[in-house]
């Protein structure tokens, strides 16, 4: 270990290190002691990070405040009845948000109903069954779906999905499930169901990639525990993987739901944009986001504009409420169980 005769800067540094045994403190000790308490650096870092996180509260509060301020005329005019009135008649100055709230909720929930099983299926296949060489390409493709701009989805829906709904899927549903009453009336191809399908396709990659992520994080030992008990592959996935990943999966579903609730362009292109509440899913509908996008530029009069602002407020509240409900559900189901697998 002793430098022997060679003189280089490294050797010089090495001998500086070893000077400690002569009584004077070593270079490194002197250097480290010279750094002081570092209290200022720690404090600054802490405050800086706090500021970053507080900015989120500030932004949310600011948006909520602006929405309330902008819609004050409408709030003053209609009060709480705004949220449950079914009429939306700009000409006579009557505004109610219920058809839009209904359209947003129904299209998003239907989309979830279709996308969640499919997304979990994709994730299960990718993590548990897919041959290794195919894993990368398929994951990449599903994630690519998330990167396509929504207007492109809209165009695809208008030219492909709508005719398909009108000529094939719609008539088939009418024939097989027409008795339920959900598939009846005049089927133009555009409407609530078409919008839900396009939403489902759009949120599929978000949910499946997050589900895949959390499933991959479940340790192998959990899978082996299930297999050793004589589990079949599906049983192993159910008790060894999905059960452990459920909180993360719900997180992915909530993210997907968030996108579905706020999605504007693709939905506007195929939902039919008619503020009505119909039992048949073939019937056109309207969503909160679509009505803002469609009518904002042509809104004449303060009350009309204010009503649109209140629609924005409604969307804001619906999103918060749905998220809160979902979290509550997770909390209720998993109470007592640890959040992560050791």
């Amino acid at each position, binding site marked *: 270990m002793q430098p022997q005769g060679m003189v280089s800067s490294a050797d010089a540094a090495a001998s500086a290190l070893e000077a400690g045994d002569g009584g004077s403190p070593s270079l490194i000790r002197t250097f480290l002691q010279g750094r002081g308490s570092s209290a200022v650096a720690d404090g600054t870092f802490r405050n800086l990070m706090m500021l970053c996180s507080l900015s989120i509260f500030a932004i949310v509060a600011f948006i909520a405040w602006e929405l309330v301020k902008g819609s004050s005329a409408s709030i003053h005019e209609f009060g709480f009845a705004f949220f449950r009135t079914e009429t939306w008649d700009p000409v006579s100055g009557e505004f109610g948000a219920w058809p839009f709230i209904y359209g947003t909720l129904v299209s998003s929930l239907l989309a979830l109903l279709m996308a969640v099983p499919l997304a979990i299926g994709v994730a299960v296949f990718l993590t548990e069954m897919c041959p290794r060489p195919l894993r990368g390409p398929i994951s990449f493709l599903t994630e690519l779906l998330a990167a396509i701009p929504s207007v492109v989805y809209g165009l695809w829906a208008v030219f492909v999905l709508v005719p398909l709904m009108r000529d094939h899927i719609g008539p088939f549903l009418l024939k097989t499930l027409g008795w339920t009453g959900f598939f009846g009336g005049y089927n133009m191809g555009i409407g609530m169901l078409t919008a839900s399908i396009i939403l489902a396709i759009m949120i599929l990659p978000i949910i499946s990639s997050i589900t895949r992520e959390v499933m991959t994080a479940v340790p192998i030992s959990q899978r082996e*525990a299930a297999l050793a008990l004589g589990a079949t592959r599906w049983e192993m996935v159910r008790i060894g993987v999905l059960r452990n990943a459920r909180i993360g999966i719900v997180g992915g579903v909530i993210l997907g739901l968030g996108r579905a609730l706020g999605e504007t362009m693709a939905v506007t292109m195929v939902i039919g944009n008619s503020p009505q509440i119909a039992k048949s899913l073939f019937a056109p509908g309207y969503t909160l986001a679509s009505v803002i996008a469609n009518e904002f530029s042509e809104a004449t009069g303060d009350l009309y504009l204010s009503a649109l602002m209140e629609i924005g407020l409604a969307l804001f509240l619906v999103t918060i409420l749905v998220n809160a409900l979902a979290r509550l559900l997770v909390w209720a189901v998993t109470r007592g169980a640890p959040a*992560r697998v050791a």
Partner: protein
Amino acid sequence: MGVGIRVTNLNAWYGDNHTLQDINLHMPANNATALIGPSGCGKSTFVRCLNRMHETNPIARATGSVMMGDLDIYKDASPVEVRRRVGMVFQRPNPFPTMSIYDNVASGLRLNGFRNRRVLDEVVERSLRSAALWDEVKDDLKRKSGASISGGQQQRLCIARALAVDPEVLLMDEPASALDPVSTSKIEDLIFQLKSQYTIVIVTHNMQQAARVAENTGFFLNGKMIEFAATHKIFTNPTDKRTEDYITGRFG
């Protein structure tokens, strides 16, 4: 009652790595058999071949025959059937964290569609008693998660979970290596009692442990079984020089 296990010409591979080479041995019923040897010698692979867990790794494969009683587990049964008859306890305790203690023990039976509440209650109690855990957890059976108890308790819970399906053979892959000495001695006492009802195969790094619990001991080295004999013979008068070197601590 356990069954004897006869292994003939067992070979196993991970990819191109020939991890087990021509293993032949007979493990008598209702005995404990210990497998010792340095890390990477193939003893874990060997027990994983006994419940066909080895082949769950896509690059792994095995050839040869393993007879459990009259059943050739590689010919006459599917992996799932084999694992229903052969319990396994792993090195790191792996209870299901999202299930209660009760549900953990009942999981093997429920998985196979067993729903009779009264019998399940009985089986859970009996299994937890056999695993010497009942007294410690009986008040929190359905309240506590399987992961909320201590490491030693978790491992005994895993043993109870394996016993609940009434296996003929119990495989234990270094069951005490992640545990403190007190938990370890509890597990050893347990193995001593359990072997009257089950055939036990235990992998261990701890030679005293092998000497304490097992009738027979096999010494593995570099994928081969060097020596298999009565435990006292292996530890007092081994035939092979390499066995002697290992147990006297000259390598490994």
